[in-house]
């Protein structure tokens, strides 16, 4: 039996194609994935991401605990509402999950974790809590729904749907969050466009979804979310990194803070392990579609595609590939697709940001 979000009935009314996504019945598209992709790049779309889990960390010393738990340094969070993208590692340096940490008060940080990792994340965090900070409380917030409103017109349409949010969010920069009544409104997302991720009580979610719909925000499925995040150069847990790979070989070195004396779980391993692989972007030069697990041949050795698809914005196929260090931007490599070798160019991602092609 698949789990359903508070918006399931709305998706059915809209004739969404529903699929099993990490045990949740989620909309993959509402008709055309490519149209939904373009709506987010050009106007505003919304995604039901209620399968993701907000987890509140409560109590004195929450900051010190997080400085140990995650690879980025939460001391970068000094202003109320500030958010940080980071990975949570195990001792061997592999990635348990990637998450966003929001700083609200010294005794309240909110973490948002991936749906497919919820059970192991909670078990891992609980184990570390008992070991390092038994006085803290970890509260999973399954009582909350989560809606992402994304696109160049996201702000305008959010204010239309929720006029009271305007004064509080108008001057809010990316990677900040604010409480608007019962709603937790964050200027974050997974598309490379401006927009908000809004956490709100499950019961209120269908009404808020309807208000956004009336303000002209188009429902978009997780299919478009995947091509949007790929174009935006954003990693997907389980594909681009997992427990067998470190953030350093997954294009996530920028999320790891190795400076200073701070000790975090996995730090020793990251300092010790040789760095032999890197994540690069690929644009296919021949006709075809790059997909995860296709082999990549380079002068420096073999690699593998971790995420690949058709890019609606570029009208070409793009991918992330894990390849040996030594492969450089501008190199031409070969990708094996159904026994044929096709040519691809190595590029620096993101491929697209704020509607503009960058490669």
């Amino acid at each position, binding site marked *: 039996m698949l789990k359903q979000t508070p918006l399931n009935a709305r998706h059915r009314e809209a004739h969404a*194609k529903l699929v099993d996504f990490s045990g949740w019945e989620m909309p*993959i*598209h509402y008709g*055309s*994935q*490519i149209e939904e992709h373009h709506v987010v790049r050009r106007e505003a779309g919304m995604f039901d991401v209620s399968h993701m889990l907000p987890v509140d960390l409560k109590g004195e010393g929450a900051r010190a605990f997080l400085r140990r738990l995650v690879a980025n340094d939460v001391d970068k969070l000094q202003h109320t509402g500030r958010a940080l993208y980071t990975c949570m590692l195990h001792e061997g340096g592999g990635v348990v999950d990637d998450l966003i940490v929001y700083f609200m008060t010294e005794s309240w940080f909110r973490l948002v974790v991936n749906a497919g990792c919820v059970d192991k994340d909670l078990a891992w965090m609980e184990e570390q809590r008992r070991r390092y900070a038994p006085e803290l409380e970890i509260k999973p917030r399954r009582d909350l729904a989560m809606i992402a409103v994304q696109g160049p017109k996201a702000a305008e349409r959010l204010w239309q749907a929720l006029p009271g949010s305007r004064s509080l969010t108008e001057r809010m920069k990316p990677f900040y969050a604010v409480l608007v009544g019962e709603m937790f409104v964050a200027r974050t997302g997974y598309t490379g466009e401006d927009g908000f991720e809004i956490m709100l009580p499950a019961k209120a979610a269908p009404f808020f979804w309807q208000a956004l719909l009336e303000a002209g925000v188009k429902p978009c499925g997780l*299919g478009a979310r995947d*091509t949007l995040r790929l174009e935006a150069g954003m990693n997907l847990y389980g594909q681009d990194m997992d427990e067998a790979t470190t953030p350093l070989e997954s294009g996530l070195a920028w999320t790891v803070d190795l400076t200073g004396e701070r000790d975090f779980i996995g730090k020793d391993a990251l300092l010790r392990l040789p760095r032999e692989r890197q994540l690069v972007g690929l644009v296919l030069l021949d*006709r*075809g*579609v790059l*997909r995860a697990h296709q082999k990549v041949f380079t002068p420096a050795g073999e690699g593998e595609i971790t995420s690949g*698809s*058709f890019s*609606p914005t570029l009208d070409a*196929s793009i991918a992330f590939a894990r390849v040996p260090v030594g492969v450089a931007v501008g190199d031409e490599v070969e990708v094996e697709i*159904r026994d044929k070798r096709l040519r691809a160019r190595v590029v620096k991602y993101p491929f697209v940001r704020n509607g503009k092609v960058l490669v």
Partner: protein
Amino acid sequence: MSIPADLKYTQSHEWVRLEADGTVSVGITHHAQELLGDMVFVENPTVGRRLAAGQECAVVESVKAASDVYAPVAGEVVAVNEAVESAPERINQDAYAAWMFRLRPDNAADLNGLMDAAGYQAQVESEAH
């Protein structure tokens, strides 16, 4: 969308139309394109290639996934639809107009072994349960 009565169908979701010159046009069904979603790539067999019945001979890829297309009957490829190769979304727009390739069947009687519209309808319904 109703399943055209004048076509033949395979279990692997190809449709087959017998043309006046004795060749057959092959495409994928409306139901198949609905399962796959937005089409972005079509690879056809080369003209002149000889195919056995049921042989993998073409590929359609949507944003979501790649899917093989099989020869409905044995024969030789006599034409491919370049318009569909350069605009795969034509399959989404009208699957039964967007033929992919044409075959000259080795044996015209082989078409009798394919499903009619009612048979294909029954298969689609049974797959839905």
